[in-house]
């Protein structure tokens, strides 16, 4: 236990205070963006999602939507701060928004498909085999990504276990 100095503070309080201020600053910067993106993604998909994949997907979404992603995350954050139920808030305030709604849809589709489609349609731009395999669509339909079934011979004879 530390003796108090003349200001009444314990000797290591100053260091703790500096560290705490530093952590708070960090929390206000990129981890918060990632955390928000992950939270929003979980609301959009109703799935538990991987943080590492979320980081990649935040980057990918930024590549196509630029600063609109941060606008979306800011809006989401402010809705949360106002104490709104996340799912209702997304449905009522974000999806109908002309600008933010499509960005949210891009994120949702990215989690489901592992790819991003150009505005005119066409191919789903893939980035990696890992993202292809982790796309949510396959487990959702009771199947698996082609080339990786993890199944036994004949499993297709039975309905999927879900």
């Amino acid at each position, binding site marked *: 236990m530390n003796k108090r100095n003349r200001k009444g503070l314990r000797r290591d309080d100053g260091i703790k205070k500096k560290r705490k201020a530093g952590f708070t600053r960090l929390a206000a910067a990129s981890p918060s963006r990632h955390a928000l993106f992950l939270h929003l993604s979980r609301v959009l998909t109703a799935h538990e999602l991987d943080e590492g994949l979320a980081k990649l997907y935040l980057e990918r979404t930024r590549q196509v939507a630029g600063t609109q992603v941060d606008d979306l995350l800011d809006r989401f954050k402010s809705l949360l701060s106002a104490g709104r139920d996340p799912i209702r808030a997304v449905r009522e305030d974000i999806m109908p928004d002309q600008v933010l709604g499509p960005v949210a849809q891009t994120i949702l589709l990215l989690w489901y498909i592992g790819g991003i489609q150009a505005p005119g349609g066409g191919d789903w731009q893939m980035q990696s085999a890992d993202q292809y395999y982790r796309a949510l*669509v396959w487990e959702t339909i009771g199947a698996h990504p082609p080339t990786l079934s993890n199944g036994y011979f004949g*499993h297709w004879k039975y309905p999927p276990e879900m």
Partner: protein
Amino acid sequence: MAETSISEKDTFDVVIVGSGVAGALIADVLVGNGIRVLLLEAGETGVDRQAMVLRWAQATFKGLGTAYIASQPSKTPGPEQPADEKDRRNARDVYYDQANSPEKYLSTYERRVGGSTWHWLGHTPRLLPNDFRMQSAYGVGVDWPISYSDLEPWYCQAEKALGVAGDDAEWKEVHGAFRSQAFPMSKIWPSWSDMQIARKLNGVPIAGHQLAVLSTPSARNSQVYDGRPPCAGNASCVPICPIGAKYDASVHVKRAVEKHATLREKSVVTRLEVDADKSVHLVHYKHWDGKPGKAWGRIVVVAANAIESAKLLLLSAGPGADKGVANTSGQVGCNLMDHLQKAVLATSREPVFPFRGPPSTSGIETFRDGPFRDRRGAFRLSLGNDGWGRAGSPYNDVAHLVRDEGLLGEELSARLFHDVSRQVRISCSVEVLPNRNNRVTLSPQEDSFKVQRPAIHFATEAYTHAAFGPALDVIAEILRAIDATPIAVDRDPLHYSGAGHIMGTCRMGFDAADSVVDPDCRSHDHPNLYIAGASTFPTCGTANPTITIAALALRAAANIAAALPKFPANPSEAHP
């Protein structure tokens, strides 16, 4: 003659052009008999299977050839192998010259060690007895110079060689196609979807028939076979089996090489040379690195698929073969065939759980033969396990529900499962008659390897068109019986997909004036030249061709081994 400049290392008993299923099987049989074999392959072995799978998984454009893009695509240009990356989507149209073709020939192949069996589905139904005698039975097409009975023992051997899984009771005698031996393996289990369809069709006559849903014989392991694992339902047979449960010809290439066959890959054969005595011994090729090569064989086998084989024979026109090698009949390149397919997509009332298992595990063989064949083509029906995958599902389904219906969260996942689990596909595959105007010739344009490209002229006939209507009618009745609703059906007989079944162009026959090879698959014109593969098919029925290719290849290998002693042992003996 350049024969005295051929070294011993380039002298072989048998030189085989092409390491697809035909060439690989022949090499394996011959080398097992102590025969010195050279396998020449234009393509490469490439990277290992897992690397190919990952390449496909990460690809944005997932075409048939995506996993198989060569390390130097410009060295083996082909319909799945664009010289330029920008052409990946339309490699076929860049390679085939179809400027003068009424319809586009749609089917493609791979130019690599093991050939197109890398990307095939793996189905191995045999041709039917009447497929071999279309002229005698129905007054259309031509008769093969061999019968189903002649080929039957070889079908059994081929099924053993490839490892075919099938149901003996179901396939005892379909349209007279008797079986003298059991399938090497028990069947690939039909899917849940197949079984629901079969159950609902039971006792319901369709087009006057009680339809039987039969498991489709396949070169796909239902147990460990030949050191390869059983199918795990990775649902990616086309274009690649990640575990080798589906047969591909690299199996026999590898086995032949282990038994000391010589494989020279990256060797594009450009010319066959005809000697004064009409023999074809010398094979000229060009390596990827540009160096010319040649090989001398006592016997030469051309097994490069129906398009490349015909192309090579025509390219080799010269003294002693003014219309091309093996072409006094003028039939080389002619009678090009394919199976033409239409898919009907439907929504079932009950879930059927697609996207699981091989893309198709069952079919309906009822309409593959019958009296109607005197006026219209036969068809085979296959039941799909891949939902509407051919139309962009399931990605399109997610996109639709998100963008058009505004769904998210649990609502989205519930709807997605509900909708996709009810996707059904039933396809028909229709026969094409041989027509000498459907042909492969040489384009004046060269490919990226500076070899003339194949020019194709292809047009379908009334005989084939007239089969689509009845086929779609049967499918419609089936869907009604199983309580499924089709989405948009395209009845236009000119809108079809190719099956990947490239057949005809070097047909078998008794008459040298009208065919390219004799019943032994030996050229009428050149005593020591054999042609193997689907190029030798005089007609095509409605069967996927590979098991017939394999049966003919094993039979030809036996013929070749027996004929070998007749031919000079080396170049000096050939030209004393």
